[in-house]
């Protein structure tokens, strides 16, 4: 009922909201020009209203594809039916808004191509994330068979130590899957002795241990082919590894939304599936514009203050 009321009031509310908001921004500019202090809680309020307004308005904006993301997509697209992919979900709920869409899109893509996925995680919280991603993927692929189409080896504590061991012997660290089933009895893991035996590794991570560690402890010693999905915070730090040590990367929700777009372009059946990252990009754009305005206002204030100081001296 509440939804119906808000939808009914939508246009009126929307105009009222944005006009009030614009007036607020004008006030902020006036405060900056006159060199008066603005309490930080007012900035918080503006930020909250900006993003809330954009989320409520449901703004969806197009995204442009980039080579760095396309490389991940093309690599998976180039694999053959039955090839094995290792998908490591190294994040927690705080990284999920950016990274879960990537994990979901890559899973959908692999299952559509009839590739077999082995899920694992280096984060204790990753086990729960794997459960969520598998549940999301199963919406489009309800007939997936555990052990034949995918498997979940879960989590091992030890960060880099885990990676260095699985680079040379996967079963030493993961003799069984998450439910104690021997990997030898899972067809997904047939013939997989170490990480290099997977046709492709996709590490989706938001910190340490994550993509950087995958490059250092798996790609370098074993020569495995890897792509990645990074939280926006860590994405810039990973460019030195691209393209020599990892052949592609999805950076933040922008990267995830690009992947969603490519997936829907090549496989239109996914158009009905919710594009979580693309939904983020609208409010993201509005928030970026607001932040840029803040920076401009702050610098106007700074230069005017400097000018006033110069004039009084």
């Amino acid at each position, binding site marked *: 009922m*509440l*939804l119906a009321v*808000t*939808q009914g009031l939508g246009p009126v509310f929307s105009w009222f909201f944005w006009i009030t908001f614009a007036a607020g921004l004008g006030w902020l500019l006036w405060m900056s020009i006159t060199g008066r202090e603005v309490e930080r*809680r007012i900035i*918080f309020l503006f*930020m*909250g209203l900006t*993003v*809330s307004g954009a*989320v*409520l308005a*449901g703004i969806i904006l197009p995204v442009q594809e980039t080579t760095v993301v396309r490389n991940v997509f093309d690599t998976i697209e180039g694999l053959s039916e039955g090839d094995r992919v290792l998908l490591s979900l190294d994040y927690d709920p*705080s*990284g*999920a*808004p*950016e990274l879960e869409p990537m994990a979901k899109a890559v899973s959908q893509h692999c299952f559509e191509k009839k590739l077999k996925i082995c899920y694992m995680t280096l984060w*204790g*919280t990753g*086990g729960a994330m794997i459960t969520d991603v598998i549940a999301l993927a199963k919406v489009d692929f309800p007939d997936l068979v555990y052990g034949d189409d995918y498997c979940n080896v*879960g*989590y*091992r*504590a*030890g960060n*880099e*130590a885990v990676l*260095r061991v699985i680079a040379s012997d996967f079963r030493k*660290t993961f*003799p*069984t899957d998450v439910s*104690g089933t*021997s990997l030898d009895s899972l067809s997904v893991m047939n013939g997989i002795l170490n990480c290099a035996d997977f046709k492709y590794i996709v590490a989706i991570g938001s910190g340490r241990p994550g993509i950087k560690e995958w*490059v*250092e*402890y798996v790609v*370098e*010693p074993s020569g495995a082919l890897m792509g990645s999905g990074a*939280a*926006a*915070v860590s*994405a*810039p*730090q990973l460019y*030195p*590894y691209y393209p*020599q*040590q990892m052949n592609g990367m999805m*950076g*933040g*929700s*922008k990267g995830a939304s690009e992947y969603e777009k490519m997936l829907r372009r090549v496989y239109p059946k996914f158009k009905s599936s919710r594009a979580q990252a693309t*939904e*983020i990009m609208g*409010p*993201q754009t509005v*928030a*970026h514009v607001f*932040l840029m305005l803040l920076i401009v206002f702050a610098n106007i204030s700074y230069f005017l203050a400097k000018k006033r100081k110069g004039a009084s001296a």
Partner: protein
Amino acid sequence: MNRKVLIPIASIIVFIGFVLLKLDWDGADRTHELWEALEVTAGGFLTLMIFSFLYKDNAFYKFAEHLYVGISAAYWMCVGFWSNLAQQAIPHLSQSLSEALGQPFLGYIWHYWIPVALGLILLTRLLPESMKIGWISKWTLAFIVASTAGLFITANLQANFIAQIASTMSLPLLPDWTGFGDFLSNFDLSYEGQFVKMFSNWVIIIGVISGLVYFFFSKEHTGWFGRVSRLGIWVLMVTFGAAFGYTVMGRVSLLVGRLTFLFRDWAGVIG
């Protein structure tokens, strides 16, 4: 009634009210429905409690913060126990215990007692200081630090030192070069064009060298060395600017995620 009693009671009543509102009374699986309602309601309340810190530190925020710490510590202990002890160590140490934990026995390996012993030694740090036995935990600490140091040496040498220098120095200074005439006749500023490729490679090579010069503190940053170091600072500033831009993007994404949850799942004001 005292405010300290009234506020928690009122909060619990409001919480139960929200759960009841969220409950789907016609659902087939009542337990599942109840968990769903509890999950969404608790998620919404706890999100608002954390956001209340933006106004000022308060009891609701403290409640959420303390709950988070307690839940997280237990979460990690459980996950660690079931993943590494129950699935990795015990199946090589005791058949009866591994069967009791539902895990297949993978063959006895006597030396797996070593990490278990070192782990138990680490826990002596929890004993009272008066027992004067905590020093023994340094054996385990030494093992942890040494393993990490050993791993760091080889990984950094390979992936972050040699490979990075090789990636930089293997960049062609004149990519796709077929002669000066061709270069001039095809000159443009398109992103995929030859000039931009060449310019980019130069920027990378000069940028890496000047950045490293800035980090070289054994020589005074004056003269030509100072000028290269100055360029290095600019390169680093661009790097920090990019990092800032992406950090903003990441944090805004998280906020959008939370607000979407609040508006869609909790309040139900968007579809």
